[in-house]
């Protein structure tokens, strides 16, 4: 799959000019990471045909889904996609079975439903309405529904965000099983580094509408110096005692003459360089 997209997006404060391009190989799981409002969901929606790019092209397995020149734009219905929405978007008027039946294309035998139900262990839920299901169960049904059409491209918008850690890791296993079974191109939007590390073959870090880093998850996720022990923003300085904000938690460290060298708001990092531990201001 080849994706080149340009679009002017309304950001939370300033407009963002999204300008990205990437290739994904069949059977690959790619994660898109980045801060909120960076345009991650918009990328999925443009691939799905739910949002119109200003310029660019999307082609999957030799078929052009979108091209600004010459003008081509396949409707969402004509694109071979499965989409798992952040809120799952299961239809409340239908039971689990009916949701799946509705999604089943006419050229697929009804046994496809049983097969996928078994694969993700939700056979006992078929008569339930979606509102009666837990978050994890709804997620499974949404995944099953998205895969019933045997899509070429599976799009997942923060699919595990609302789940606890245990359920998350179970479902990640399920996703890997389903991905192997159906061999889709999977594009996953995620905030969660451990999720990306576990699932993705490649990760893209997006900021202000541009890809700022890409590669194997381990290189994208560990974007700091491998020797860094601690990195954080100075919250308070009192004599030789500094309080740091480190990834949403607080750490207190003692540094000689701290109030002389550091001010509130400075970035401070401590690294181990061979046998010597250093602390310094980061510029």
């Amino acid at each position, binding site marked *: 799959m080849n994706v080149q997209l340009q679009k002017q997006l309304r950001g939370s404060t300033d407009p963002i000019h999204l300008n990205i391009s990437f290739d994904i190989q069949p059977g690959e799981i790619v994660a898109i990471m980045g801060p909120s409002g960076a345009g991650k969901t918009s990328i999925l929606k443009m691939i799905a045909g739910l949002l119109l790019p200003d310029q660019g092209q999307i082609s999957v397995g030799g078929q052009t889904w979108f091209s600004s020149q010459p003008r081509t734009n396949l*409707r*969402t219905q004509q694109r071979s996609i499965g*989409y798992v929405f952040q809120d799952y*978007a299961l*239809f*409340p008027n239908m039971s689990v079975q009916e949701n799946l039946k*509705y999604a089943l294309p006419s050229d697929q035998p009804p046994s496809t439903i049983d097969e996928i139900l078994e694969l993700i262990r939700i056979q006992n839920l078929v008569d339930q309405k979606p509102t009666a299901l837990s978050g994890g169960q709804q997620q499974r049904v949404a995944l099953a529904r998205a895969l019933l*059409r045997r899509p070429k491209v599976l799009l997942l918008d923060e699919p595990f965000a609302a789940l606890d850690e245990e359920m998350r890791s179970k479902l990640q296993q399920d996703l890997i099983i389903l991905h192997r079974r159906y061999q889709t191109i999977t594009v996953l939007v995620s905030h969660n580094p451990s999720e990306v590390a576990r699932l993705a073959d490649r990760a893209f870090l997006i900021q202000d509408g541009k890809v700022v880093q890409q590669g194997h998850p381990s290189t994208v996720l560990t974007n700091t110096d491998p020797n860094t022990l601690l990195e954080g923003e100075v919250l308070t300085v009192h004599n030789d005692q500094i309080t740091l904000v480190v990834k949403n938690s607080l750490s207190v460290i003692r540094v000689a003459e701290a109030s002389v060298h550091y001010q509130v708001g400075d970035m401070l990092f401590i690294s181990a360089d061979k046998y010597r531990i250093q602390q310094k201001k980061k510029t």
Partner: protein
Amino acid sequence: MDWSPFWLSFKLALITTTLLFLLSIPLVYGIYFYGKNIRPVLKAIISLPLVLPPTVLGYYLLILLRPQGWLGQLSQQWFDLRLVFSFSGLVIGSVVFSLPFMVNPILSALENLPNTYREAAYTLGKSRWNTLINVLLPNIKASLWVGGVMTFAHTIGEFGVILMIGGSIPDETRVASIAIYNEVEMLNYANANVYAAILLLFSFIVLLLVYSYQHQRTRSIL
């Protein structure tokens, strides 16, 4: 006591509600899926009967439906049907007059549904029409009911438009609200009292049913 005005009102309300239900689904489909950019204009046109004096609406309908009018001529030529001062004319008038009572609840309920229902159906390869019929409308059943009941009740209570385009012909256009007016004109207060009390009770019961239903739904959601 002549009960025929009530029967006529009931018949008119039933036909109007059925026609409006059938008409509002394609109308809502057009506005919801295609009329995105001109939605405010379309909504304003549909809601006009809510704010227009019934006499204004009745006047324009009279111009349209009279034998020299565009619609009147057409119906005379094609169906040999006179529209003014006839039951058929009343049905047309009622459909126009009650249009917002059916369309507005359905449209606003659709707009309040999460967009992802529609988008999810598209990603499953479903057309817009299929999405509307199988996914969107079944999830706003309550609003369909409210629209239907309010249309029915509103048609029963219609007066101004009917007087303008239908007059007061017994068994043809003399509906309950017109009958009350006639009885008062003829100083038959006893009859007017009974007619009015029945309409009052009917309107109250309809509103009570609608609000009880909504109240119950809110409670079950909470």
